[in-house]
């Protein structure tokens, strides 16, 4: 069975935010504007977050691109009262916008704050709407949304493989963030396939996961910065 996962190599990442822009473009994420952004209501399925090593108030800052972790033990799925968010057999944590009642229990429960809420009806000033991606739903007001691991790209690749009567290949599915990454820091693939690139990278000694001790079992694996030795 496929279990989709992502590896983000922090040694390669320069913090340029190309992934963030690409994600917003690909997934029809609206611009909320100055006032709303100041209130913390801008939506970033992929966001570069700061993590201060050594606690909240001291130490060096580390920058990490943070998509949805697609946890194998997702705290958000458990608490949803209407089953609007679920974990599918491929390990993807999905969101059913049409069912979501907007109680924001999942957003409150997510330890990564990776879920976002549509405070108002999103809008695109004409002709902005022309650049909307036809593969991705536009979300109405009042529902929760988050990174989908570009599930539409996964389905497209799977359909193509099926039409050509073959198995899907490693590296065939590339989410928008990984595709644009200038320093090729983001890798995507099947964690259950021991030969896949992500599986191999996930076995690296540099590998760690965010808030691992919480037992959420995230499927986004980070590779910490390397050391230079002369």
């Amino acid at each position, binding site marked *: 069975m496929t279990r989709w996962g992502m590896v983000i190599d922090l040694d390669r990442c320069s913090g340029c935010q190309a992934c963030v822009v690409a994600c917003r473009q690909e997934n029809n994420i609206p611009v909320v504007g100055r006032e709303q952004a100041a209130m913390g209501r801008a939506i970033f399925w992929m966001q570069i977050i700061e993590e201060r090593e050594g606690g909240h108030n001291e130490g060096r800052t580390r920058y990490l691109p943070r998509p949805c972790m697609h946890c194998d033990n997702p705290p958000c799925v458990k608490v949803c009262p209407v089953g609007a968010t679920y974990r599918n057999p491929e390990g993807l944590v999905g969101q059913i916008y049409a069912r979501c009642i907007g109680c924001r229990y999942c957003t409150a429960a997510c330890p990564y704050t990776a879920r976002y809420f549509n405070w108002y009806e999103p809008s695109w000033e004409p002709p902005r709407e022309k650049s909307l991606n036809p593969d991705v739903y536009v979300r109405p007001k009042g529902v929760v949304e988050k990174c989908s691991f570009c599930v539409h790209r996964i389905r497209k690749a799977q359909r193509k493989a099926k039409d050509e009567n073959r198995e899907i290949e490693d590296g065939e599915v590339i989410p928008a963030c990984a595709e644009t990454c*200038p320093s090729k820091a983001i890798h995507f693939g099947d964690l259950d396939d021991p030969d896949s690139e992500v599986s191999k990278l996930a076995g690296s000694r540099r590998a760690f996961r965010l808030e691992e001790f919480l037992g959420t079992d995230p499927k986004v694996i980070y590779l910490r910065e390397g050391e*230079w030795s002369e």
Partner: protein
Amino acid sequence: MEIDRRNFFKVGIFTAGTLIAPRLWGDIGLETVAEQPWEGPPGHENEVLSVCQMCPNGCGIRVRIYEGRAVKIEGIPGHPLNNGSLCPRGQSALQLLYHPHRLAYPVLNKGARGNGSLQRMTHEEAVGLLAEKIGDLVRRRQTHRLVIVSGSHSDTDELILRRFCDSVGTPNYIKIESLGRRSRSMAMGLSQGIFKPPSIDWSNCNFVMLFGSEPGTSDISPMWLLRGFGELRQGRAGRRAKIVHVSTHFSPFSSKVDDWIKIKPGTYGALALGIAHIIISEEKYDADFIEHFTLGFEEFKEVDGTLRPGFKEHVLNNYEPAKVSSITGVPEEVIIRLADEFSSNRPAVAYGGDGPASYSNAVSELVAIHSLNALIGSIDVPGGVLIQRDPPLRMPERVSNNSLFTHNLSQPPVDDSIRSSNLPVYMAGSNLPMRLSDSSPYPVEVLVLVDYDPLEEAPGPNYWREAFKQIPFVVSFCNFSDESSRICDLVIPPGTFLERWDGKSVDSSVGFPVWGLSRPVLETPLDGMDPSSFFMKLAKSMGHQIAGAFPWQSIEELLKEIAMDLNPSPGQVNPWDEIAAKGYWSQSPYRFGRQREVYQTRGNRFNFFMYSMEAAASHLRSAGYANLDKTGTDLAQSAFLPNHNSAEFENWDNRELFFLELFGTTLSGHGRHFSLEGLRELQELDLNKSWGLWLLINPRTASKLNLSNNEIVWVESNHGKLSARVKKVEGISEDSVGMIFGQDKGTEHSDTLSNSAMSLVGENISPLGGGLCWGTTKVRIYRA
């Protein structure tokens, strides 16, 4: 109804039943619920290959078109420059294409500028109007009074506009280059005779010293640097390069590198020469390379007997570590360590970026930094400094000067530039606005701005406001109602790069030649006519003589002609179809070991002793520039060696002043497209804020000035002032404040105050390089 026990329990069970019945524990029927991707009716979909021009670099892009709409841009996989990737600015190009505030048609301002009545017209009518204005100059034999200032990234615009100026008879085609580019080109020009910024073979480096350079922040090779950053780290199994970042403030990028060195503003070159001192005194330099490929390492005598000083003695005598340490603030042991690591981990590269390029001593600092590469032989070798080669384009021959315009063409250019193909002297864009407002050397009658908004992008916007008042007819080619176009007579929307034909050679990056073909991605073009087409049309409407210089029916036809010699496969007659199918042409790999191509200087060697600098100095002296101290051109022979001259800052006030560090980020670049909402909404990493104009300030400085986060303060220089919000950032040093290029550009309109941080910067141009020194400004901070 009587209450009895039975009734009571009935009620209870009913209540519980209705609540529990709908769903029990677990994922019931979730797979039947609609999946996220929307499977609408399959629409027609295709991909158009083109070239990104959000910066001058020229990445290959493929645009996904769905039912005639452009819905996403990705890089072209395998493209030598960006290999399928794109930077944040490139990803935002569709926001430019489908911007709601794009101008739809040319507008003529009738009456007073700024508040006259606006008349809508077609592009054809605009061509006619401009033909009339320029035709008038032609009739009066005053064509030199036409000035075209272009900030366009397009190579075709460059060709057509220059050609138009030549054929009409004006010396006043002025190209505005990216900030810092000119100084970086000059440094390469003085030492290697190549007037282009250096290209670096990142993927083979082992040790990188970045002097005030951050990948992705400047307009020079952001993608190439970002790509290189990943390659250096984890691109090669078992070989991880060390990256040293020398800069004046600790940025988010500084936290990404292996070693960050803090340096005082304007002293980069001193550090480089201090490192050179150690390398030379410990004899860790590449003696073989120095012997065969450099000139002036040791003292030498000219044929005529003139004694030329050597770099070696010069550095040993003047840049001992203790002295350098006191200049730069970098501890001696760090200088020694850097020298050791740099010389023993080859191939190593020293690279100067926006940091050194921003000070008044820009060119000499960049030369000093580049001399480190020569010391250890890191030029024209894998993992070293390469030169960017041009594709063999079949450019149309220059317009032969017809008798009609010889007089006009020989007029002094209005920007007072000294244009000599073999002298690194350039004054363009410097005092241009002042001279325009003074009507010297002659009054200008028609000013055409192409993709350039001087009131936002140029330093000292008030000079430009003055200049505008003096010029009877000002035309602006711009897609948005920007600061400048608001006070223009005629505004013509040129459209975006996604709607036009263009050919683009990549800027300094990969080394080997790459030529990308840009073409309209939409079947039905939006509004706008690109400047090339416009001026070709204009020329054709202006009569035989001028029209004759433009024999092509369309830009596409011109490009076909230009690309004739780009043979992808030997023996092929017309390469066009193949280039069109691939999106670009390239000729890899890089050819090493062509000394005459790499060093186009005297002796075809790396010039430690810079002959062209000496020539430039005498030229400047004869042209009447007295104050040459900052270029060192008045000084002794040793001034023509790599030197550190102290940078000048504007100490305009007795009260406490702070260095203004005006810098770019990967999102902002140099601020050109930073008005796109999609970019503005992203949080700058160390700011943790989006939108707005922010002043980055050290927390200790802030508490000294009694300022808190989000507070609005005035930032005042001797050129202007603007209000910004305070954000305490630990990485900024205590004697500086920071601002980001282009923040809040074009968002708040005011006739007296420009909101771009560039308005705080003065017209400080280094006479030698001609580049703007935007780091010389000092500001005062006080509560609004």
